[in-house]
């Protein structure tokens, strides 16, 4: 596939927005929950098909974007991943999504709109598109978070998410304004100043980048801007937490990498201080607080902060190696998180005690959940191990003086084993009667497929990475 800067990744963006509208209108005609779920799955297959058609140069909608969106192999491959993950997510948790409230079709429509924002983020080449992508991605999530209208927690989480989301948007906009003041452009490529006054205001550029960095740290929940995450993830309906913690979060990282791959140079030496500081704070805040949680859902929220710390390593070396790493991490982390959350939504009690004795009552659920959790902890033979390995290796590749940071990260990974294994301990070694809602054979089959995928990628990560270069 040739690189063509003048054409945007149009199919995925246009189709995901259109499909969202079709889904919304479909809700008027189709009344049954099963029908709505089926329509969503069909539409997702259409979206995936249209995207793959563009990927293999069979069919695409040509739109002149004046360089605002750029087609790159990286972005296209990431789009393939997130659309496939959304498909998997809907297949697995579609029944739960329609059960959240009385507006099943609208929930799917909002998921599609959010996906549209994520596809913009993977192909933007202009800060206007970054802003629009972030907003299109997060505004539907405010609604999804507060979609359990009768539940106070859900409402509160929605409000909190909105306040923090729009606050960070304000910071992002201020950053973009300063960036514009410094360069006169919204494009993310380097530029030259023409006259003297413009030259003088070029000093606004590093300040603007700092603001953008802070704002994107909010979006991917990196410490010290992570404080909204546990409450929002805990309060939101579990199915939507799963979507927020995987697709939305990784799309935020893609936006991060695309910008700072080109622009971290302009932040100069301060970049070298800022990045390790944020990484260590994120690992600390995520891992240490997760140890003290009683609810598995809240533990997973903190663990998603800890994983953000690992994904930030990709910013160290955002060349091919770092990009491969973030791809692998996206797949490994998202598969495992979608799996654990799918099991979690079936549980009646979200605390660790709720998992007691799951291995006796539902052996398939317990076994697959064990694999997901091993992958999250980064145990060898699962995908999570190579994902973490690539992240740490990319930091070492940049310079061996980062060794101390890598050692700190490995120590925190060891801490994470403690709280992940508490779930396994509860499932296998404690007596109890774990209660679940009704589980269909199809759901079990899908869980087994996901677990198999994790193991296969864990054994041969090259399978996935070869696809990237195919």
């Amino acid at each position, binding site marked *: 596939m040739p690189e063509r800067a003048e054409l945007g990744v149009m199919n995925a963006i246009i189709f995901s927005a259109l499909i969202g509208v079709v889904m919304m209108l479909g809700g008027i005609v189709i009344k049954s929950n099963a029908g709505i779920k089926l329509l969503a799955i069909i539409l997702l297959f259409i979206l995936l098909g249209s995207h793959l058609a563009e990927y293999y140069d069979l069919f695409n909608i040509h739109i002149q974007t004046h360089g605002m969106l750029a087609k790159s192999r990286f972005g296209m491959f990431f789009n393939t991943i997130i659309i496939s993950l959304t498909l998997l997510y809907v297949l697995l948790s579609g029944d739960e999504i329609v059960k959240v409230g009385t507006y099943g079709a609208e929930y799917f429509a909002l998921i599609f709109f959010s996906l549209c924002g994520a596809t913009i983020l993977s192909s933007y080449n202009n800060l206007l598109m970054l802003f629009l992508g972030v907003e299109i991605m997060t505004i539907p999530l405010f609604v999804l978070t507060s979609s359990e209208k009768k539940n106070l927690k859900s*409402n509160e989480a929605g409000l909190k998410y909105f306040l923090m989301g729009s606050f960070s948007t304000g910071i992002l906009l201020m950053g973009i304004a300063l960036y514009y003041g410094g360069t006169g452009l919204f494009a993310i490529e380097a530029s030259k100043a023409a006259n003297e006054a413009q030259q003088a205001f070029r*000093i606004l550029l590093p300040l603007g980048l700092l603001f953008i960095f802070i704002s994107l740290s909010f979006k991917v929940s990196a410490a010290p801007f992570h404080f909204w995450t546990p409450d929002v993830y*805990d309060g939101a309906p579990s199915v939507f937490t799963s979507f927020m913690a995987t697709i939305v979060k990784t799309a935020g990282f893609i936006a991060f990498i695309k910008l700072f791959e080109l622009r971290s140079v302009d932040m100069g030496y301060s970049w070298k201080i800022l990045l390790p500081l944020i990484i260590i704070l994120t690992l600390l805040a995520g891992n240490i607080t997760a140890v003290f949680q009683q609810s598995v859902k809240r533990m997973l929220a903190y663990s998603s902060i800890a994983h953000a710390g690992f994904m930030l390593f990709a910013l160290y070396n955002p060349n091919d190696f770092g990009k491969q790493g973030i791809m692998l991490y996206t797949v490994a982390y998202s598969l495992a998180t979608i799996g654990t959350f799918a099991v979690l939504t079936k549980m009646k009690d979200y605390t660790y005690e709720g998992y007691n004795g799951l291995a006796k009552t539902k052996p398939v659920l317990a076994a697959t959940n064990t694999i997901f959790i091993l992958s999250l902890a980064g145990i060898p033979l699962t995908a999570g191990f190579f994902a973490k390995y690539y992240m740490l290796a990319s930091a070492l590749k940049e310079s061996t003086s980062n060794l101390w940071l890598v050692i700190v990260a490995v120590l925190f990974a060891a801490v994470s084993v403690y709280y992940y294994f508490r779930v396994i301990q509860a499932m296998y070694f404690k007596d109890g009667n774990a209660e679940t809602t009704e589980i269909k054979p199809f759901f079990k089959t899908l869980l087994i497929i996901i677990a198999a995928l994790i193991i296969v990628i864990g054994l041969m990560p090259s399978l996935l990475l070869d696809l990237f270069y195919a």
Partner: protein
Amino acid sequence: MIELLFHITAFKSLPLGEVGGALTHIIILSTALFFIGMYGLFTRRNMITMLMSIELMLNSVNINFVAFNKYLYPDKMDGIFFSIFIIAIAAAEAAVAIAIIINLYRTHKSIDVDDVTDLKQ
């Protein structure tokens, strides 16, 4: 960080000229509005006032865009168009926010954020 501080302290001694002088005043205004908005967001407990603070932050950015466009880069209209996008998105955000606030008011009978503390642990 060190470089940044160096840049800011060096700001005064730069040959800004007439354009730079007028622009500096506008930047001071917009920065002041931005931080007033931020202060309001963190100190006010009324949800509507918090929403207004956020709007203040977004609008202070609009001033920045228009000023940079007029004084530094007048050959294209990028900045002005960006501010139109911001206004549109801010309206969408406000619509969602008001919906959430109304829903909270129905259940809590209050729009004070201190009354909404079910998630505190």
